[in-house]
């Protein structure tokens, strides 16, 4: 049966059903089902989060000043972003203003996390959708060296001997049967288009990126006191500054600041000489594969982030843009007010929750997280062993957030589309430059590859912003301001009896909001709407499909039983389902089941 969704997609679930479960190389647990037609083209897509995440329940009744420590444990990747969002929500509720240094340090940490996440995502979670490390064994090191010097002439590691060494290391690794990191690949699938030399170059950079990411995270240790799970503070940052070398142990001194500065420079170099050239070089071989745009050309949402000055979140003060685009109208960017009960609402008609009545949308301040696990009438299997979901009924643990009723894409591409539409100078320059270099029209942006490219551009931009805030911090310290926290309202006796607030960030994966209600000094209600809730949302009451589902539509698959194309597009969102379980067999192999029904 063919159904047209209000957001313009023709869904046809009559063809062969393919189930991919779990989707690997993501954070958390996710399942995907699609129907393909006789030509192997995807005509219906169903994405589902298969794990309950009742974080809201866990922080209820706790001290709001501690909420960051709990939300930081939601997952293994964007830990700091959740903590930052949480302290912002509490500060918003209680009217706490943070000092200038705290704003600069938080921005440096947040930008650092964006870069870390983007680099790790591209090389370690996503590259293998485009790059074939097994094919790299066939490469000629000399030709690889020439390729390197052509695409990234300023990168010092480019000799034939260097690539030969890496190739030998790789060979040893593969021959030892430890395929570990590279297992579960469909390495002979014709969807892989790179010549062996490009595969070797990219695989080599995979290793270099591993080395770099170890350095990047040291910024979190310096400012957060520890890593993993750095420390945060309502009212500022928990690191005293003392550049005169006397005073508290562990205070930020010049030596530490110099280390931060050198790490920032390394990020900038890597983005410029390796990451961006790689995206262009790899993308160049896939210019005919411009699928996966989904909602990006019609509905994008960004909350904005990286305020130039503390406590000022007005759109013109934010380095990462805020705005909403709907109905494919790029000439109008709507402002976003996350407090407005009419704007952000979550629906649960197709989610395993209940609000007591159908068709209802709730603003997160009034959010309810009450589970209701039931399968639709046409589901195959049982509640404890689902063979096939029924998307007509409830089918996901993810709620369906909507902006004024629209399903939205969030993330680096959404930020860049919003920025581009607003005429954001840095973003426009970057995007136009990339399109020119690759000889592609602006429409090419609305694709899986566009999402991947936006992430690389953003990483480069974040590197420059990091430097900006570092310089700002140092200037401010040199001018004698060493304040990092405002503790005027630390004591709960200074708080109102009831308060509510919202914290917003642009997490690496997209718009992130935490809504908090405080009563008698304790958390009364806490709701997180995370980026993957937006992108991975199931259908809503009106039948609109979410960004993951939309992005899979109309993509041709080379071999439906080898879902390279599905993984490629889903990975381009960097899904993070922030939960807990992977399915493993007794011999330690990850069991991804691909079922064709």
């Amino acid at each position: 049966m063919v159904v047209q969704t209000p957001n313009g997609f023709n869904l046809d679930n009559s063809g062969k059903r393919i189930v991919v479960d779990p989707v690997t190389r993501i954070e958390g647990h996710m399942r995907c089902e699609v129907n393909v037609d006789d030509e192997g083209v995807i005509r219906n897509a169903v994405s589902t989060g298969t794990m309950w995440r009742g974080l809201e329940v866990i922080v209820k009744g706790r001290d709001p000043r501690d909420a960051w420590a709990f939300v930081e444990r939601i997952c293994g990747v964007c830990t700091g972003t959740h903590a930052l969002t949480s302290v912002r929500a509490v500060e918003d509720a209680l009217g706490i203003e943070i000092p200038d240094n705290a704003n600069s340090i938080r921005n440096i940490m947040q930008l650092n996390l964006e870069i870390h996440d983007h680099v790790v995502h591209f090389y370690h979670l996503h590259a293998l959708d485009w790059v074939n490390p097994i094919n790299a064994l066939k490469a000629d090191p000399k030709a690889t060296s020439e390729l390197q010097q052509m695409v990234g002439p300023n990168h010092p590691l480019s000799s034939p001997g260097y690539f030969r060494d890496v190739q030998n290391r790789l060979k040893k690794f593969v021959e030892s049967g430890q395929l570990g990191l590279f297992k579960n690949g469909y390495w002979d699938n014709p969807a892989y288009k790179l010549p062996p030399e490009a595969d070797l170059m990219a695989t080599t950079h995979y290793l270099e990126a591993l080395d770099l990411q170890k350095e990047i995270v040291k910024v979190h240790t310096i400012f957060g006191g520890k890593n993993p799970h750095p420390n945060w503070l309502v009212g500022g940052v928990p690191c005293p500054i003392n550049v005169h070398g006397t005073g508290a142990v562990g205070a930020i001194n010049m030596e530490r600041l110099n280390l931060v500065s050198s790490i920032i420079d390394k990020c900038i170099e890597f983005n410029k000489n390796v990451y961006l050239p790689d995206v262009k070089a790899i993308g160049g071989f896939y210019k005919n594969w411009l699928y996966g745009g989904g909602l990006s050309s019609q509905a994008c949402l960004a909350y904005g982030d990286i305020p130039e000055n503390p406590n000022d979140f007005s759109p013109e003060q934010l380095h990462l843009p805020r705005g909403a685009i709907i109905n494919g109208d790029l000439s109008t960017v709507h402002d976003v007010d996350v407090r407005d009960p009419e704007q952000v609402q979550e629906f649960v008609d197709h989610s395993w929750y209940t609000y007591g009545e159908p068709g209802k949308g709730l603003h997160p301040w009034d959010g309810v997280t009450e589970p209701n696990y039931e399968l639709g009438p046409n589901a195959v299997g049982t509640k404890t062993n689902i063979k096939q979901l029924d998307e007509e009924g409830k089918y996901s643990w993810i709620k369906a957030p909507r902006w004024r009723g629209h399903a939205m894409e969030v993330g680096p591409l959404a930020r860049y589309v919003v920025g581009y539409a607003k005429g954001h100078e840095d973003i426009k320059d970057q995007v136009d430059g990339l399109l020119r270099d690759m000889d592609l029209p602006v429409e090419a942006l609305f694709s899986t590859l566009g999402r991947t490219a936006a992430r690389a551009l953003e990483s480069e931009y974040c590197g420059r912003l990091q430097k900006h805030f570092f310089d700002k911090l140092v200037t401010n310290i040199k001018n004698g301001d060493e304040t990092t926290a405002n503790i005027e309202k630390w004591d709960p006796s200074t708080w109102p009896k009831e308060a509510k607030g919202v914290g917003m960030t642009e997490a690496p994966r997209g718009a992130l909001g935490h809504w908090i209600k405080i009563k008698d000094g304790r958390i009364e209600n806490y709701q997180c709407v995370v980026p993957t809730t937006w992108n991975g949302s199931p259908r809503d009451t009106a039948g609109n499909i979410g960004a993951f589902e939309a992005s899979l539509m109309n993509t041709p698959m080379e071999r439906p039983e080898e879902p390279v194309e599905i993984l490629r597009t889903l990975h381009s969102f960097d899904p993070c389902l922030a939960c807990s379980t992977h399915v493993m067999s007794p011999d330690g192999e990850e069991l991804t089941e691909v079922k064709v029904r």
Partner: protein
Amino acid sequence: MQPKVLIMGIGNVLWADEGFGVRCVERLAEAWAFDDNVQLLDGGTQGLYLLPFLEEADVLLVFDAVDYGLPAGTLKIVKDDEVPAFMGAKKMSLHQTGFQDVIATAQLMNQCPERLILIGCQPEELEDYGGGLRAVVQRQIDPAIEVALHELKQLGVAYRPGKGDETDLAHESIRHTAYEEGRPSAEEACRTGDDRFFPQAS
């Protein structure tokens, strides 16, 4: 020269018995002091973030909740080459896949510690989000520390009664006692889903 020793607990404290490893290191720091060559670390739920710590270590001792298919609360110690295989055994949680990858990555980069010791405890319950350690697992914290001290002694690593360095442990608001006192009941925390996550449910 003294070997550099990393003593790390991994797991997600929000997932009931998954918190075993992190709690072991907390307890260790409450009772034992070490020289500067030993680092105590809350590894939490993180994967690649842990690489820089592995790179610096000669000896890695990990506490973790591991599903060996044994009776709940059973301690099992595996060493060196056996460690990665065991960490990939049977039904596993997010961080273990992560940590197995971390070890594989460290090996690929020739940065894996020479000696690996995994002190694992068979969990009773992992699927109680917001829950705490079950009694049978909690009782194994002290025995696990005994094992760790014995292993450290064999390697010539010094320790003495006292306080360990808590710099790299979890923030106090989420330490064992604070966490347990404020957590919701199992009913509130909800357990529902498909049977691959809920081995006892089917």
